[in-house]
């Protein structure tokens, strides 16, 4: 039932492999973009709240500290990293990595991923404390 299995099934039986290959890439980029878009949007929501409350926006790292009840940012990063890695495993990983490296400095999603890896640990730690 997983998306990966379905994809493989489709690929193996496909009549025009070239088109299917492009389709898979499109699907990966599309699904990735949807996730990135909505993740950034979900990041922006606490920011909107902050602006609305008239407070100065502090640095993100402080943010999370000052809002102990709002752990969504960390959680979201954790989840996103996982889903991201999941999609990446399926297909032309190296190929894409290569392409991304060209753009790494200004927009690389890897930097977010890397940073979120760290946060994942921190978030997990903090959650354990809270859930006691």
């Amino acid at each position, binding site marked *: 039932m997983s998306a990966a299995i379905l994809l493989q099934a489709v690929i193996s039986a496909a009549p025009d492999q070239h088109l299917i290959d492009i*389709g898979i890439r499109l699907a990966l980029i599309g*699904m990735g973009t*949807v996730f990135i878009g909505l993740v950034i949007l979900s990041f922006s929501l606490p920011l909107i709240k902050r602006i609305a409350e008239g407070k100065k926006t502090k640095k993100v790292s402080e943010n999370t500290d000052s809002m102990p009840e709002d752990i969504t940012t960390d959680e*979201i990063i954790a*989840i996103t990293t996982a889903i991201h890695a999941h999609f990446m495993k399926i297909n032309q990983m190296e190929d894409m990595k290569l392409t991304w490296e060209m753009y790494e400095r200004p927009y690389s999603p890897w930097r977010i991923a890397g940073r979120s890896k760290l946060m994942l640990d921190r978030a997990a730690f903090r959650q354990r404390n809270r*859930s006691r």
Partner: protein
Amino acid sequence: MTLASSLLSALTANTGELNLSDISFASYLGDSGFGQVEIGNIIMIIMGIVMIYLAIKKDYEPLLLVPIGFGIIAGNMPYNPDLIPIGYLDVLGGQQSVFKMFYFGVSSGLFPPLIFLGIGAMTDFSALLSNPKLLLLGAAAQIGIFITLLGSLFLGFNMQEAAAIGIIGGADGPTAIFVASQMAPHLLGAIAIAAYSYMGLVPVIQPPIMRLLTTDEERKRRMKPTRHVSTTEKILFPIIAFFITAFIAPGAITLLGMLFFGNLLKESGVTRRLADSAQGSLNNIVVILLGFSVGTSTQAKYFLTTDSIKIFVLGAISFAIATAGGVLFAKFMNLFLKGDNKLNPLVGAAGVSAVPDAARVVEVEGRKYDKSNHLLMHAMAPNVAGVIGSAIAAGVLLSMVPH
């Protein structure tokens, strides 16, 4: 009948030259429904009646299915196209049929953004603002779009067609119509009918999948109440959300621009009368004409093809996958969430869009297992996120697939 037709098309050719012998009750009957009817028309008309029946009796998306249903009937009434321009593609002697003029709003892509304007002006994004992580469910459910795209390629559609068919999985009628009008106009009728039919059938399609993929304990889980959202947040949201989503998916600027514009008119507090018309009379007028036009575009001779059947099959699958995607992703998120932050995975099903029907289905399902557990407000967050998500997906396809 062929005789009568050829006689009269000869007549038409010599405009103004009338022959006494051509004017008879017999030739008139030949051009009336009695002479022109075909089995395909009857099938489609029955389909239209069934849609109207479901809309009225079962309350399945009546605002869409009644206009579409009657449009199907009107578009499939038999007539002789050599004599009178009636059908949605007819032009005769330089005069377009009225149905063709109505249909322009669909084929040009004009109506969907206007519908989005109305949706924006009637949507309250509070649920989403108060619970950002539920946005991810709206992303997850879009897997239906891309799996369907691959399935369509597999069934022999080309890339443009596959992209347009895929969007059915977004469970968002206007988005599906918008993409189809740009990418595969010849499939627009089937795609629109499939999208709206399955949106109407959400209360039928989703529950079994939701039950299959969840445990009893999960279905009973309660979620933390949502927080209060200030007016300023609501005003800032459409502007910032538009900025982010449009930056990431420029192909969605038209749809998302109108969605968030409508929402700003609603939330600004100083443009009440504009918001009222955007979600009121303008929306109603567009819904009437869009639904009716989509209906008339199902003329049997263009509509009853194997492509249409494939599209209906793919559409059903895509709704099922989207629902499963949302539910499973909620369970996946629960792996990272603790205590009362854990989600009731039923809420994931609302990620498909189909606002607000999918959210209502979640509420109804949830209460089947715990009468006092209200999931509606929680489901609204992925529900509206699903609209944004499928618009982004549409934007990606519109800008990546040459058309």
